[in-house]
């Protein structure tokens, strides 16, 4: 493996604060293009915050951070369209159907109908599920719909927070396949998971997070 010219994520001594509490206390992390990085660590270690910082949802209080070589604080606007976050929330509109949700997110980047159909196909939400309201979906189906939205809006860096949570065994297998496919197609993935063995098999690298810092 040759080292890529430009790391996708570069955090150096990053501090982020939420409600006066330093959720990140000097995290340093580099993620190269095409990697699938697994974040593991105890609850409250700062995994979610690390993902939210990279997604631009948490301001960088101290330290430095770059995503795609762009500064996290001053060049946020250029970073955002290329990043997708799937957190504890799915970011779906519960009153719309699966297809309407995916279409909406795809349309924000001007995706064609064919691309949107392909995204739904890949996540297995195209046929019968497509016209079901999101409110009536199971947790796993919602997760798949949310991933379809990420695919539809062509995110290059996927930040996934506990994506396995709430999925059944088949759903988890499908998810892993999807992530491998996405990585093969050029996406960079940072994923946090409690499903350690499963995620370890998936990941190209594991990183421990503890006390708001990245373990060496």
């Amino acid at each position, binding site marked *: 493996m040759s080292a890529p010219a430009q790391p996708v994520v570069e955090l150096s001594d990053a501090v982020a604060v939420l409600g006066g509490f330093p959720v990140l206390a000097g995290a340093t992390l580099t993620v190269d293009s095409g990697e699938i990085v697994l974040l593991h660590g105890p609850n409250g270690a700062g995994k979610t915050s690390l993902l939210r910082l990279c997604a631009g*949802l948490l301001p960088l209080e101290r330290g430095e951070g770059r995503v795609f070589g762009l500064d996290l604080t001053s060049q946020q606007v250029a970073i955002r369209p290329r990043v997708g976050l799937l957190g504890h929330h799915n970011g779906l509109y519960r009153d719309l159907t699966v297809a309407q949700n995916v279409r909406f997110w795809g349309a924000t980047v001007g995706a064609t109908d064919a691309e949107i159909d392909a995204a739904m196909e890949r996540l297995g939400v195209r046929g019968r599920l497509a016209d079901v309201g999101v409110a009536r979906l199971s947790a796993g189906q919602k997760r798949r719909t949310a991933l379809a939205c990420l695919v539809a809006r062509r995110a290059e860096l996927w930040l996934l927070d506990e994506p396995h949570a709430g999925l059944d065994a088949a759903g988890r297998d499908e998810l892993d396949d999807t992530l491998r496919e996405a990585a093969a197609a050029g996406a960079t993935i940072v994923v946090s998971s409690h499903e350690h063995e499963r995620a370890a098999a998936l990941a190209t690298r594991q990183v421990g997070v503890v006390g708001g810092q990245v373990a060496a």
Partner: protein
Amino acid sequence: MNRWSIARLVAAKDLRIERRSKVLTNQVIPFAGVTMVIFAFALDAKSARTDDGFVPLLELVAPGLVWLAALFSLLLLVQRAFAIEADDGALDALRVAGVDPVAIFWGKSAALAVQLAVLDMVLLGAAVLLYGADVPAGGLVLLVVTLVVATCGLACVGTLYGGLTAGFSGRETLLPLLVLPVVAPVLIGATRAVESALGTGGVALSEGWPWIGLLTVFAIAFGVGGALAFGPLIDEAT
């Protein structure tokens, strides 16, 4: 994707959600209707003396009550418009995706304006039915123009402050505190304009048009100001 088409996309999305969830038709409009009825209880069926002799009090104050009910309903609609974004983290997702905030503002304002316009018409209908207000043919143009311009202004203010308070605890109480003083000019202007359009209490039609100027300036000021302010307000990270 340019700003205009994203705004249209957001507006279409909000209206589609309303069509599927029917919060406006099943909850907000009934609320507005009940408000109109209880106004009548509060004011009683008394008459007031005007230059034209005795006029039922309710007919005299009907335009004001219509807009007052519209303001209260506006608060509900704004809460709803941002609840759908905040419920499952969609607002966060929009921010992560870097969707142009100006487009979000215009899109959500437009969707809110459409819903408000429907509500206004229902309220006017209620005023005609319940309060005995009547709409002369000559005032129809003024009435429609007032309705459109006032609604645009209200929708812009509502979207702006709805976005500001979305996601904070205590937003239900903060929103009225911020919105009501700001929309006072709309309440005043739209009420007087509708009074002229309906000829309430013998107000001449020509007296209504200066108010349209006020309402237009208001709508433009908050349309532009809101578009500028909305992005930085909903985006906490930069």
